């Protein structure tokens, strides 16, 4: 009988020691998930623009969809719960079209910008946690291209096709212009304007317009200036410095200031892509984007769109790039912020089987990351998708 006892004891021990994974097999559903927001209409098609997390833990996705009544695309607001499950979708009146990057949060109010389809005037929308529109304010500028925060105000980038100027202006959350609108001549001729109009009609390439402000320093924008897509530094009165592109064939695809004088940038040049996580850019000189010392990334699709931001992982700030690979996946690349020697800490690929493209990401309150993008369900239908990475998964990216 003693032999039987041995077997029972050893069996019990084996089970106890080896079955820890049963008790540990609990996941918090809000931490990590992946969702595709499917619509069973054969001809439905959606274009994600940006994502933000709301104070209740849920998400709002700003997106766009083709309209049969306009050359422009309509405005969709998709509301998701904290598990990423679809709650509701609001298709705004068809007079509002072409929502632009980004959704900006100011004191628990969310703002985004779109365009009036008739007057082409930019309209500022204020929405609440439930993605319900609280107010719409015409801004007196046309062809909106980008919206960013500027302290407690908003910074808008737009285009005036009458004067052929790129316009940078600061507005209050109520939509009142603060100071003067800075205008930058794009150059004469229809050819110069053509890529901008194609961008708005979505008949051509989507151009990487963006704008911001160096903390305590000048403003910058990436838009057309002097015949080229350029990164322009300005104090809103005059042009201070320029990083010139190659008409619309080269220039910056993303850029943010990361430390004094240094920028994290991504650029494209005749299809090729380059990443510079820490480049020194003078805000008072004129240089060419090809002068930037950076690393080639042949893995990315031609003229790849790049989403770029500084996020906090394990209490440390890191530069996160998001883009699209030639293999149809979304790639996330994390770089450390370390003066002029920023090194790649890790990469992560999202998506499989069908093609995936990134539209935006936002850091979540649990220390994770929400990435919104587009996928072709069944290889055919453009749908919005969302990857939620937990803080642990994000931590693995930088370790």
């Amino acid at each position, binding site marked *: 009988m003693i032999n039987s006892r041995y*077997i029972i004891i050893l069996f019990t021990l084996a089970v106890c020691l080896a*079955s820890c994974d049963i008790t540990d097999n609990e996941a918090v559903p809000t931490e*990590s*998930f992946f969702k595709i927001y499917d619509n069973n209409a054969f001809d439905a098609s959606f274009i994600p623009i940006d994502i933000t997390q709301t104070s209740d833990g849920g998400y709002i996705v700003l997106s766009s969809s083709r309209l049969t009544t306009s050359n422009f695309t309509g405005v969709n607001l*998709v509301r998701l719960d904290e598990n990423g499950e679809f709650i509701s979708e609001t298709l705004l009146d068809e007079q509002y079209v072409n929502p632009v990057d980004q959704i900006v949060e100011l004191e628990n109010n969310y703002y985004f910008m779109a365009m009036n389809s008739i007057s082409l005037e930019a309209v500022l929308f204020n929405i609440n946690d439930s993605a319900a529109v609280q107010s719409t304010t015409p801004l007196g500028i046309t062809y909106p291209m980008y919206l960013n925060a500027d302290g407690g105000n908003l910074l808008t980038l737009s285009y005036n096709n009458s004067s052929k100027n790129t316009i940078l202006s600061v507005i209050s959350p109520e939509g009142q212009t603060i100071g003067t609108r800075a205008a930058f001549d794009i150059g004469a001729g229809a050819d110069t304007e053509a890529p901008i109009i194609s961008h708005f009609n979505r008949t051509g390439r989507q151009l990487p317009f963006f704008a911001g402000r160096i903390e305590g320093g000048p403003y910058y924008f990436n838009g057309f200036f002097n015949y080229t897509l350029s990164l322009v530094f300005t104090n809103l009165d005059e042009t201070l410095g320029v990083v010139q592109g190659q008409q619309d064939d080269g220039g910056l695809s993303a850029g943010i200031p990361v430390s004094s004088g240094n920028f994290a940038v991504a650029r494209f040049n005749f299809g090729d892509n380059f990443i510079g996580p820490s480049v020194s850019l003078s805000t008072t000189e004129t240089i060419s984007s090809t002068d930037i010392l950076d690393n080639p990334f042949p893995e990315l699709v031609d003229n790849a769109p790049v989403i770029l931001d500084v996020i906090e992982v394990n209490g440390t700030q890191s530069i996160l790039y998001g883009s699209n690979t030639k293999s149809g996946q979304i790639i996330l690349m994390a770089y450390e912020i370390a003066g002029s020697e920023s090194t790649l800490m890790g990469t992560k690929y999202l998506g499989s089987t069908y093609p995936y493209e990134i539209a935006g990401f936002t850091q979540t309150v649990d220390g994770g990351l929400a990435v919104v993008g587009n996928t072709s369900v*069944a290889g055919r239908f453009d749908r919005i998708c969302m990857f939620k990475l937990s803080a642990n998964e994000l931590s693995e990216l930088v370790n």
Partner: protein
Amino acid sequence: MKKRISILSFLLFVGCGISFAQPAYLNKKRSKKPTEADRFMQTQWWLGFKAGVNMTEASPDQRFSGLSPTNYDPGILDKEYDGFEAISGQAGIEITFYHKGFSFSFQPNYRRQQFGYSNSYEWTNTEDADNTLSLNYDQAHKLDYIELPLLVKYDILKQNKFRPFVQVGVFYATLMNAQKEVEISGIDQASGSAGPFENQQLIIGADDLFIKSSTGVMGGLGFYYDFWSVRLVFDATYRMGLNNITNTQNRFSENQLSGIGDAMDDVNLNNISFNLGCLFPMRFISSKIHNPVR
């Protein structure tokens, strides 16, 4: 964890080996006492091998999907699970201690278990009914386990050559390998085709989609048939899994098929297995004529 299981398995088998290495003559010595002799006649160790087939059914608890519908009922996304359909195999050894009609049996085995489910989706054009695409995703999962079952058997007839028995027990299994196969088929009327099409089959490693451990209870019936000095055994056993085998933390992140909207539900595995084996007695009445104790 793997190393720990290996060491424990080694100890287990060494322990068993020591037990069986005890020669019968030692018992003979003890059998000098009359009560010991009686006890000797009522006790036997059996060692043998067995193999057979099994069918598995996955029982979903909480359901998940990679798709979140915006304009149709989420219930449409529920997976349809196959029943006990796919046949797999298992093989292992049996170590049984018999005493007065009751047997305590340890039956480590290597087994493959298969289960499957399917999803169906349809996209239609409300203005042109000809523009319709129907897709069906058939997903099969092959899980290889090393299983350590512990059973108590009771012989209904004790003195016959033909000895039916009933058995109940518990099992613990550790996953060695997992594979997932997806076959996509459908009807694409929008492309002008009314007939079905089949896409290439996708096969991926799926170790990360499942946790290592699987436990449960089991019960069944069978019979022994004694001839010469060996015993044939046949049994039919039902296993009821008691834990969720899906790795909940990797449900979305490590699933290479999440791109098609796949996400594993929380599932327990239930299994029916049939085994045929041959057992050899380890204790004999006489070392010259080798009459086994039965």
